[in-house]
């Protein structure tokens, strides 16, 4: 997919490679890079997913990174039904009624 100048996009970059990480971090964290995600309006004329691009963030900073998404959407939601929770409302209401 192609993005064009002015499109709202999400980018990715590596802030610190694994061997640049701080000495105090635990080993599992030290074995992976410090990564960054941000969003902005594409500054380049056009680009493909995976290209190195420049964007202007919403407040106007210019930053670089790898283009990973065009018109990025929020996909968090209310999750799935958690049947394990269903007893709580009935149980506490019944307990309250018992005393009346």
């Amino acid at each position, binding site marked *: 997919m192609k993005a064009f100048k002015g499109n709202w996009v999400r980018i990715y970059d590596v802030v610190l490679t694994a061997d640049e990480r*701080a000495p105090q*971090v635990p080993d599992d964290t030290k074995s992976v890079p410090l990564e960054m995600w941000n969003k902005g309006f594409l500054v380049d004329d056009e680009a493909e997913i995976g290209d190195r691009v420049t964007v202007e963030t*919403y407040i106007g900073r210019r930053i670089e990174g790898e283009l990973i998404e065009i018109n990025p959407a929020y996909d*968090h939601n209310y999750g799935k039904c*958690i049947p394990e929770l269903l007893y709580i*409302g009935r149980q506490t209401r019944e307990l309250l009624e018992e*005393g009346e």
Partner: protein
Amino acid sequence: MKTTDMDMSYEAVMARKSEIMKASVGIDYAEFESGSIAFDFERMMKETGYTLEEMREIQRETGVGNTPILELKNFTALARKYAPEGKGARIFLKDEASNPSGSFKARRAAISVYNAKKLGYKGVIAATSGNYGAAVASQACMRGLKCIIVQECYDSQGKGQPEIIEKARKCEAYGAEVVQLSVGPELFYHFLKLLEETGYFNASLYTPFGIAGVETLGYEIAEQMMEREGRLPDAVVATNAGGGNLTGTARGLIKYGATDVEIIGASVDLKGLHMASDKQFNKKSFTTGHTGFGIPFATWPDRSDVPRSAGRPLRYMDRYVTVKQGEVFYTTEMLAQLEGLERGPAGNTSLTAAFSLAQEMDQDQIILVQETEYTGAGKHILPQLTFAKENGIEIFRGNPADSENGVNIILPDNPGLIKAVDLDILKMKRSYVKNCIENTGVKNPTEEDMEFLAEDTKSTKVYISKILEEI
């Protein structure tokens, strides 16, 4: 400051930390230092902060504060079923979710952002994955400043806590730029680079402005309870993470003259999970209000992103309890089902503790929970437990006392199993003193140091001498 020709390596940026901080918070912390362990906390709060009246005015301008206090009659009735004869204090709740950004953090952000604007900064930056980011973004929007929020958000698999992703959405809704990072304390390095590049104000949670903003919360509690009940609460429970919530609330109560109210801190027990671990990052279901922040910040507050943290919980805390993740989820569901109030889980940490603590208190006593937070997609018991399951956490009904962090979440089989567990506060005071000695390298504390340590641990010089002999 031009950053193009500067050394931007981790070591080089960290070495410039104090000059970056000085430029970005407008406070020269050296002015309050004694050169030894002690520093003049009260003078720092006074000279860099605002009076209570000024803060109330600043907050009124942006619609912050004046939140209602609700009595949770059904919670009280249920707690009394499990309490000994004559026990079961009335439970009250300050509904801080009614603030513009949905949490008490709007109070902290209001003062920081006002101060940034007054000093002529063009924008503000805060490092936070939580409600504080939304609060800073909202206040910056109202005051016409630019805003950048830096979040620790994803693990190395690109998986992020739904609660943190929701917070990013909320910040962006207010026009802020959100920088999302993977797990690790080097977030601070990136944060420093952004401060240096933009010249924006560091709206840290730990500056005097950030803490003093919560004083209005404590003051309002006293004022509203006097008006409504003709008396003060006997105990106030505050969720404790970085220490600012408890510190500010306690200071506000003291400013009112409510010096006898018991101040209780509460955190979610996340013992056993390392906060900087990439693999354990998504094994927890709480991103704040937990012991992973609460204990290290209480025993060494100056680990924060400013040289001297204004959040110093041991200075005010009478008691510190923990509750389990499953207990907080149960209480959150119970709050919705019994009281008709759907609020975010993390903010209900202190409520969970209060449900248990009320059972130790007399029926004519009052226990007040000083916050709630908003709830919504991602930041809700369903998505948070869905995420827990996806990360291999088992969820079942049983006794929460048996739960194992990172392995399971046990929902109490009945509300009688919700038990606040006391942390050894004396042990925490000892480790605070020990940390002061170790981190400053001071071998022979001065008289001033002794007084400072006594004040900072709500104890006495005799007690400090005893600790010093032991370590």
